């Protein structure tokens, strides 16, 4: 049990490396974020390990700084989405009745509109700043967390131990945070990994479409957008940030899978 399976180990290593790179970006990056240091689309060399981008900035440095932005925005939005979604979801499941109906139908309404379109509409009428971006992404995504936590909590809320707490006269706070939340935590934590990946993809997509992180700030989606024209000339600069997005997504997935396996197997779940 104490041994970590190989896929999870790989996932942990890759995820860890990306997060460390994001954290220590100014120390690791050889050049500044928007420093023009060479020619347009230089190939890789000793000076510029990954070459330069469409206006001659060091691509490695931009990738490291871009990762910092991407991971920060995605993490912040995930935390917001989890906080809002799970608190409201647990509350709806425990209280039930018209409160539950109201919240659930509102969530249905939001979910009926494709998330990306909704985000594009909102962001095109609001000033695109970092906080606005995070709040829009987090709130839109919280609908999914709401659904999951409500479903998990609704199953738990009818268990005898919750009934025993109600019979004792416990308040809603105790029932939600002490009786239900600890038991709902494992699916929620595994879901958190999935939501984080979704956020990375979401912010990358928005930036690629020009409504996410605004230049001269950079994120991976934005770097893909800046360099996409190079592909026509056989220049791979656009692919590197795309690879970064893909590997981070897969790595986090592997970790989330492992967490889900571990926590469910304690209760005689997936792994016996």
């Amino acid at each position, binding site marked *: *049990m*104490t041994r970590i399976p190989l896929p999870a180990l790989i996932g942990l290593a890759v995820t860890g490396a990306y997060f460390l790179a994001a954290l220590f970006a100014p120390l690791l990056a050889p050049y500044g974020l928007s420093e023009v240091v060479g020619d347009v689309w230089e190939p890789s060399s000793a000076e510029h390990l990954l070459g330069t981008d469409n206006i001659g900035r060091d691509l490695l440095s931009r990738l490291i700084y871009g990762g910092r932005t991407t991971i920060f925005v995605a993490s912040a939005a995930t935390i917001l989405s989890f906080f809002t979604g799970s608190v409201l979801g647990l509350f709806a499941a425990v209280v039930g009745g018209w409160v539950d109906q109201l919240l659930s139908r509102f969530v249905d309404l939001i979910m009926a509109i494709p998330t990306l379109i909704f985000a594009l509409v909102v962001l095109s009428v609001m000033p695109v700043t970092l906080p606005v971006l995070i709040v829009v992404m987090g709130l839109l995504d919280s609908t999914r967390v709401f659904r999951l936590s409500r479903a998990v909590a609704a199953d738990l809320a009818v*268990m*005898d*131990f919750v*009934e*025993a707490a*109600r*019979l*004792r*006269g*416990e308040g809603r706070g105790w029932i939600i945070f*002490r*009786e239900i939340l*600890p*038991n709902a935590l494992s699916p929620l934590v595994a879901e958190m990994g999935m939501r984080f990946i979704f956020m990375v993809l979401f912010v990358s997509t928005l930036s690629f479409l020009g409504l996410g992180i605004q230049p001269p700030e950079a994120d991976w989606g934005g770097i893909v957008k800046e360099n996409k024209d190079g592909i026509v000339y056989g220049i791979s600069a656009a692919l590197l940030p795309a690879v970064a997005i893909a590997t981070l997504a897969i790595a986090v997935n592997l970790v989330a899978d492992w967490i889900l396996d571990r926590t469910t*197997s*304690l*209760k005689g779940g997936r*792994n*016996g």
Partner: protein
Amino acid sequence: MVEPLLNIENLRIEAASYQPGEAPSRITIVDDVSLSLQKGHVLGLIGESGAGKSTIGLSAMAYGRGGVELTGGEIRLNGREIRTAPSPVLRKLRGVEVTYVAQSAAAAFNPAKRLMEQVIESTLEHGRASRREAEARAVDLFEKLGLPDPGTFGNRYPHQVSGGQLQRAMTAMALCPQPDLIIFDEPTTALDVTTQLGVLSAIKAAIRDLGVAALYITHDLAVVAQIADDIMVLRHGKTVEYGTADQIINAPRKAYTRALVSVAANEHPENLPAGEAVLSLKGITARYRNVPFDVVSDIGIDVKPGTTLAVVGESGSGKSTLARVITGLLPAARGEITFAGRRLPPGLERRTREDLRELQMIYQMADVAMNPRQTVGTIIGRPLEFYFGLKGAAQKQRVVELLDEIELGERFLDRYPAELSGGQKQRVCIARALAAKPKLIICDEVTSALDPLVAEGILKLLLDLQTSEGVAYVFITHDIATVRAVADTIAVMHKGRLVRYGMKSEVLSPPFDDYTELLLKSVPEMRIGWMEETLAALEAEAR
């Protein structure tokens, strides 16, 4: 000498065990078990949960559930060794030569298919008969098993028949391919006693008429006494005693078997002090939302301090609903509840903390009645903190006292529910209820999920606590033996109404009303031939 139909020698079964925090290990779940079964005979396998009886039963078709491996010994069926047989051979024999009847018929039938399809499926699959022959055989079996309208019964879907009928349909399914051996795995355990009697006699008659052999797995010795020729008593995967039914029931040699035979015979002397009732219901009527009829109607009962009222009835009789009404989870539509001299509001929300503290509840399934993420210390400690404000060392000291009272002790303080046995879990639930210093505890089927000897221990503990703490119980159960062992007064419920109510000695002695008589007569007694006598008696009365 003719070789027996089934001959198992020195069977050894192992399973992989995954303990959290430990490397996977192999454990032996059945060790050195030998048995033999002649054509047309019935062997009863009996033991508490974890004794390995189902595992041995399934080994008769060389099958092991997930992770279970038949690692040693010999299983000979119809003269050939099947333990090591390759899977094509086993596929041909399973479902035809050997068939299986599971405990929960409701879970074993596919709800989307008609019964007939499912009853004849394996017969057709193995080419044992044409569709027409198989259907004719099934109809014949329906008739033998006493199912209504045998000709058209097979056209129904599983949800259109009752639990007892479904269990008989499953027996028909097992009999249809004309097997040599049937494995019955607790076929009547999930049924009410009055239904159990009918299913049991139908199974016995069908086995006798068709001359098949059977392994009958159950935890209820009284049931197996009615149906088996031989009985094997198992414990922890080993044979305790193996002999004829007559010898096991009437002259058990081993102490464990003797304990099993005598377990149902406890009797609690009734006692009814004078004075004010601690709980008194008057004209209680209640219904669930969106249900057009009263689930309980016009119930009036009294419980005196320090006494036990047993509420008896089969499933659907409204006895658990009555408990929900008393606790306020389901507010009564009409009627009044007086508790400890004060009138209780019908709904939970409007009751005071004092009302809630003095009226505690213990559940049937102890493992879902405790939060799996809380330790025993937290589970028992919370009511102390909540009702009495006890914290820190004072709380811990009281928890340890309570743990001693339920005979567990301090070392259980930091355990999680998953680390407790069934009986220990129920004891912790009792301690949690006691922690509130209640005047009355509602016990909802608290022993029915437990093995007989464990259940006996729980009942004894509850009675001891009643003497020392003076607490009253409302004891909800379907089991007459439990009633005899704990009750001072009895309320018999049927279809939401009180059909009989009074002192235990009055309720359990004639003259009876029809329902109480049926209920009492349906409880299997621990003697051979009881079923035939009872059926004859019931038939004579009907005439």
